[in-house]
């Protein structure tokens, strides 16, 4: 070895030994290496280290693993898909109920004076809860996005 590598090139040598770098910086490094024995030794040393690190074989994939993964994902995604479709259907149903009840509530009572109308006070009291339920279902699976 010809002494310590130049501080200005130490990291660049490492960067270039491990992968692509900016072409301008690479040309600068190449020019520097031609005239600097210490940095050239450092460069060769890192190239050897990186070659050793990269020679470790890719881990093998057990036979049938991709098919198994695809099948497992298909099953899980299918379940989620059904839940999502159910949530959409439930939302639509809840909204229909809400609209129907609102229309009945707005319509004038057809019963005789003194008799209860089509929408009883008990049902009217439930309307805010139906609305909340519709919103919750409408949210679908959004709350599960957690990457």
């Amino acid at each position, binding site marked *: 070895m010809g002494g310590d590598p130049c501080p200005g090139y130490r990291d660049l040598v490492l960067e270039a030994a491990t992968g*692509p770098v900016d072409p301008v910086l690479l040309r600068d490094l190449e020019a520097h290496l031609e005239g600097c024995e210490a940095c050239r030794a450092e460069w060769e040393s*890192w190239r050897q280290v990186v070659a050793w690190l990269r*020679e*470790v074989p890719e881990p093998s994939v057990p036979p049938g*693993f991709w098919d198994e993964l695809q099948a497992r*994902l298909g099953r899980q995604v299918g379940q989620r898909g059904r839940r999502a479709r159910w949530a959409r259907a439930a939302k639509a149903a809840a909204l229909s109920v809400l609209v129907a009840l609102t229309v009945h509530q707005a319509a004038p009572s057809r019963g005789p004076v003194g008799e209860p109308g089509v929408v009883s006070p008990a049902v009217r009291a439930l309307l805010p809860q139906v609305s909340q339920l519709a919103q919750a279902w409408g949210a679908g699976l959004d709350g599960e996005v*957690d990457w």
Partner: protein
Amino acid sequence: MEEDERLVRAFRAGEESAFAALVIKYREPVYRFLRRMTGNHEDAADLTQEVFLRAYRGLGQFQGRCRLRTWLLRIATNACLDHRERQRQPLPLEAAAALTAPPEAAEPDALAERRERWRRVRDAVQALPPRQRAAVVLRLYGGCAYTEIAEILDCSEGTVKAAVFSALRKLRRALEAVKEEG
């Protein structure tokens, strides 16, 4: 329009087969990254499945601000770090000692020596702190540029370089120990 963008749009339009196509396209880089990160097939397999399930749930909100591969590798990194946190497993003794342990007796055979070097590299990679390990795996084995690694790890390029350089210096020390044995 790029293929990935077409697939994402098709998926959003309700075409489930578009998601299957994305899985087929990216399952290998995701699995290989996770295999290098975890060091074993079982965890890598479970995490690969988890990554694609998270992707399935999140694809509707994917903004396209980065490449799909980058986004999936970010999910994979987070899944891996979460997994580690959940398990709270101490490092395998062998791996933890890999960077400092005195070398074992070298085998005369060249192939055996190479296999020993591979084992030491795997152990030394496993002994790295998780984010350093992710950075170095993405750089060395994933062929990622520093900018992409920064996007995946959600940090600055300078931080990534510092992590990669630090990891590489540790790995070099581990390899030099093997070389001295030989």
